[in-house]
């Protein structure tokens, strides 16, 4: 399936992907609204300083988060690991079990949240669309 990959040698460490990600998941229509309304928009992608590598969900073949979810809120739909916020009880076992550190408590603190490849925001990942150096790509690399 198509996944989000980062070409490390092209990443400039500008962190803009984080902001576009948070904006895309904020439900707001303007970026400044997402950050200026005091709602603390949170990105689901993270650029680590120095190593310039954005970490986001790998959508594992056999996701540990899904295995460990006590509420059955995590499922894999068309290869995309998703969290059902209605079912999530906010125990954050998934946050602890993700080996990549890609799941975080949501801003309300009551449920977990993670990258769902922008399937809920029109399907084309915002980080990929807005990367200023074409470093983040959404492509098929022959992995499951």
């Amino acid at each position, binding site marked *: 399936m198509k996944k989000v990959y980062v070409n490390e040698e092209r990443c400039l460490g500008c*962190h803009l992907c984080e902001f576009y990600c948070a904006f895309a998941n904020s439900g707001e229509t303007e*970026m400044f609204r997402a950050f200026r309304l005091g709602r603390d928009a949170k990105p689901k992608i993270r650029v680590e300083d120095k190593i310039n590598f954005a970490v986001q969900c790998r959508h594992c073949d056999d996701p540990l988060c899904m295995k460990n979810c006590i509420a059955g809120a995590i499922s894999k739909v068309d290869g995309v690991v998703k969290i059902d916020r209605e079912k999530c009880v906010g125990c954050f076992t998934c946050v602890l079990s993700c080996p990549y550190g890609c799941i975080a408590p949501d801003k309300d603190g009551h449920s977990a949240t993670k990258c769902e490849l922008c399937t809920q925001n029109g399907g084309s990942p915002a980080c990929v669309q807005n990367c200023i*150096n074409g470093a983040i790509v959404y492509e098929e690399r022959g992995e499951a």
Partner: protein
Amino acid sequence: MPVNYFPAEFEVLRNYDKCIQCRACERQCANEVHWYDADFGKMLSHDEKCVDCQRCVSICPTSALKIRPNENAFRKSANYTQPLMTEAYRQAGTGSVLLSSMGTPKDYPVYWDKILLNASQVTNPPIDPLREPMETRVFLGKKPTKMKFDKNGELDLSLEPSLTLNVPIMFSAMSYGSISKNAHESLARAAEELGTYYNTGEGGLHKDFYKFGANTIVQVASGRFGVHKDYLNAGAAIEIKMGQGAKPGIGGHLPGEKIKEDVAHTRMIPRGTDAISPAPHHDIYSIEDLRQLIFSVKEATEYKKPVIVKIAAVHNVAAIASGVARSGADIIAIDGFRGGTGAAPTRIRDNVGIPIELALAAVDGRLRHEGIRNEVSIVAAGSIRCSSDAVKAIALGADAVYIATPALLAMGCHLCRSCHTGKCNWGIATQNPELVKRLNPDIAYHRLVNLVTAWNHEIQEIMGGMGINSIEALRGNRLMLRGIGLTEKELQILGILHAGE
């Protein structure tokens, strides 16, 4: 210490209602203009460091930034302008020659804009390039002037070595050192895909780029950096650089800070040493000496490659070109004074040389008059800004044109004219690995291909409009040109009629 007050050239305007403190501007500014004040929770700026490269403006996710000329200026004078005053202060402080980059910003006449093109109407109808073939392929090199037969009376079909261009546009010389490796890679890949050529400039050829040899013109300049037998043989043609439009009569100086490991290796000089190209070639003081160098490089490449001689457009350019044509060169490149540069003394760039339009017309006319126009091809360079400039250049007598500034623009250059600082925020004119990264060759090469493809479409449209279906029929076809608002003398030099005539 006297007080030296320079008003900041630009002002950074930040719309605080929109700014989300993402700090992308801060991270992406090599001039360290932007900074974040944690106590106030605000982005602030050091306006005096801004060079107006527009990097921050382009990437700001909320369009919160604007750069504008600083209105706080010295008292206005049409004679002592603000740049002249600050330059005087600067020189009083440093005692140094002023440096500038890219083409002169001064308001000299642009003759391209005073020449109009013709179009067909009734008797010689226009051609639709989308429906009919339209030839833009060009061959550069000596053309046969008479038929030759061998002993058996068979026609001798052999030709002098030449270059084949699918489009009448080549990328002109920009050295590895003055521009980044990623920029070079983009140019090389674009030239390969377009079926044209890029030029190494005087900085040698990086070992990774020998594979693009079939689309490379290798340059030999006065510093002879990176010149060896394999280098000469790597390219499709060899260019001997006698002068550059932006700085005629001046050599080059690549500061030691830009001579990093790779550049040093490619140029065959020690790391960190200044790469100084002398003003003259120390072995060329006459046309005969130039002939010796031409035949030396021809000898080294077994007479298989055409030799280009690049000269700056200066006052006697027609006579110089005539000499060059007789020296054995296959192609003459003429570089006009509005052409770009990675660094040149400001006063030279802004005051020396002549416009390419006049130089080109003078050279083409002179060579025709002397009956040696077929001995050489002419390449026009030095501010060919768009496809119609290229068409006008060809109609004035050029076989093809060299472009560099438009190529840089395609790669992201915003013409801030700060190349000489080595802090190019667009990853082009820099050797700082963190900045070089910003130019993604996968994107840049594609944009270069797009640019030249678009120009070629436009050239075909314009030619079609004239009822011409081959670029060969456009070359030197000055009847397709008319001057507008030009004096009798200018029209005479350009060899064109005035509009209405």
